[in-house]
């Protein structure tokens, strides 16, 4: 029965990866933009949440209610000030700018908070679990999976059924013509980035409950998010969920054999996917290369 439990834990881990990755996937899909600061912005949100908790003595969920809208605002500001300009400057500019932003954030956090791992107090949440038969269902892991489903499902619905979603998809298809139809692209993209960063901050904070947070955590966060998006296929939100699952299950299964190589295994899996099926599970072949 333990292998069933392993798969289950892998699915939960996948949900966490997917929640972390959905913002990155959204920005790829809509704006064709690789936000290399995505992981660091997730970490930023985490530090913000812990700071709010420490400053006001409020529990985690209250801190998150404050922090997530702030992260949305940060996304708006970043898009309007930096990312939009980078996109209009050229194809390499977004890479360079977001990488530079990543370095800035990491070092700002380093200076402000020190390099030590900081915990995210969450009562019993990180250890509480339901035991069913031989299966372990940790509350936090289930929460992350549910949130991943809610966020991805919600975003998909917004994109498919609302006027905003229609405008986002139209702009993604043909920005010049969208403008000629009266769509204001700058505020539209700002709202997309806002959502992306808010989701990242949410995911980052919940993940940090288990692992703690440190200033350079953003790099690994970005890499996993990126891989989930690629494996699932660019432009597909549900694909990102599956991509996360693939990564998570691989990692958990390999860790049963050898813990130190679990992470390496998922990296190698990603490289294999790149070699064999670069468009991922649900992506368009022409998007990559």
């Amino acid at each position, binding site marked *: 029965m333990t292998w069933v439990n392993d798969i289950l834990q892998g699915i939960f881990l996948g949900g966490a990866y997917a929640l972390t990755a959905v913002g990155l996937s959204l920005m790829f899909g809509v704006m064709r933009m690789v936000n290399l600061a995505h992981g660091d912005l997730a970490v930023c949100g985490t530090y913000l949440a812990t700071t709010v908790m420490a400053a006001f003595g409020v529990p985690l969920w209250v801190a998150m209610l404050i922090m997530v809208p702030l992260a949305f605002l940060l996304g708006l500001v970043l898009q309007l000030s930096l990312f939009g300009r980078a996109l209009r400057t050229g194809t390499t500019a977004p890479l360079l700018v977001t990488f530079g932003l990543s370095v800035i954030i990491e070092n700002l956090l380093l200076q402000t908070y020190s390099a030590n791992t900081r915990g995210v107090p969450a009562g019993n949440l990180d250890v509480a679990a339901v035991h069913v038969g031989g299966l372990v269902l940790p509350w936090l892991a289930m929460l992350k999976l549910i949130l991943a489903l809610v966020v991805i499902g919600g975003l998909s619905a917004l994109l498919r059924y609302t*006027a905003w979603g*229609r*405008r986002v*998809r*139209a702009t*993604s*298809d*043909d920005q*010049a*013509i*969208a*403008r*000629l*139809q*009266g*769509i*204001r*692209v700058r505020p539209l993209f700002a709202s997309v980035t806002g959502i992306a960063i808010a989701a990242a901050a949410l995911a980052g904070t919940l993940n940090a409950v288990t692992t703690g947070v440190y200033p350079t955590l953003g790099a690994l966060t970005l890499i996993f998010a990126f891989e989930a998006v690629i494996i699932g296929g660019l432009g597909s939100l549900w694909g990102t969920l599956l991509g996360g699952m693939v990564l998570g299950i691989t990692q958990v299964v390999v860790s049963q054999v050898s813990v130190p190589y679990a992470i390496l295994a998922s990296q190698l899996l990603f490289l294999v996917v790149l070699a064999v099926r670069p468009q991922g599970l649900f992506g368009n072949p022409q998007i990559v290369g």
Partner: protein
Amino acid sequence: MSTLAVRGLDAGYEDFQALFGVSLDLAAGETVALVGANGAGKTTLLMTVAGALRPWRGGITLDGTDITGQPDYQRARSGVVLVPEGRRLFGSLTAEENILVPAGRREAGPWTLEALYELFPMVAARRSHRAALLSGGEQQAVAIARALAANPRVLLLDEVSLGLAPAIVDAFYQLLPAIQASGVSVLLVEQDVDRALAASSRTVCLLEGRVVMTGESASLDRDALIAAYFGSPSAPPGAGDTGRVRT
């Protein structure tokens, strides 16, 4: 007062100037045809009027209001809408979603979704299909419907007949009177000179970015037009490019 007035427009791309002092007028409910050889500047003119291109010099007014400085997204809301060359639908959206996209003026006029489906029954039949999967004629219908859905004052049609069977093109041109009747002025670019003359009340001919001839379509001298079209010696470039138009 003209609905649309273009005065002394210079426009181009980077180092290349495509329009030289172009002027024309469009009266309310009028259809004007823009003809000229490839590269004459017809699409550039439409793009500039639509706001996709910033003119280097000159002005554009809509019902007397200067819209030259308006960015493209604002111009659509002001009522100048382009049906681009090659349709350029939003491929991943359904036909209906394409029509619903235009922001702003949808409540303001007669072209509701129902009215558009009446005008284009073939679109109504395929409304839930993704635009990328529609046939050429259906795509053109969706593109025109999308533009009309914004209830424009001025409709710019760029090469509606491109790549379509003559029978289908005939059908489109038969719809023009209905469009005009709703108060829309139409500026259309058409390769087929005969069609252009038949569909419009006035015709403007461009050559190498200049207006070389204008006149009432019904009484236009065919030979003079053909000469202007190709820039033969009997109609040297520069003749008639003051853009004086009898309104």
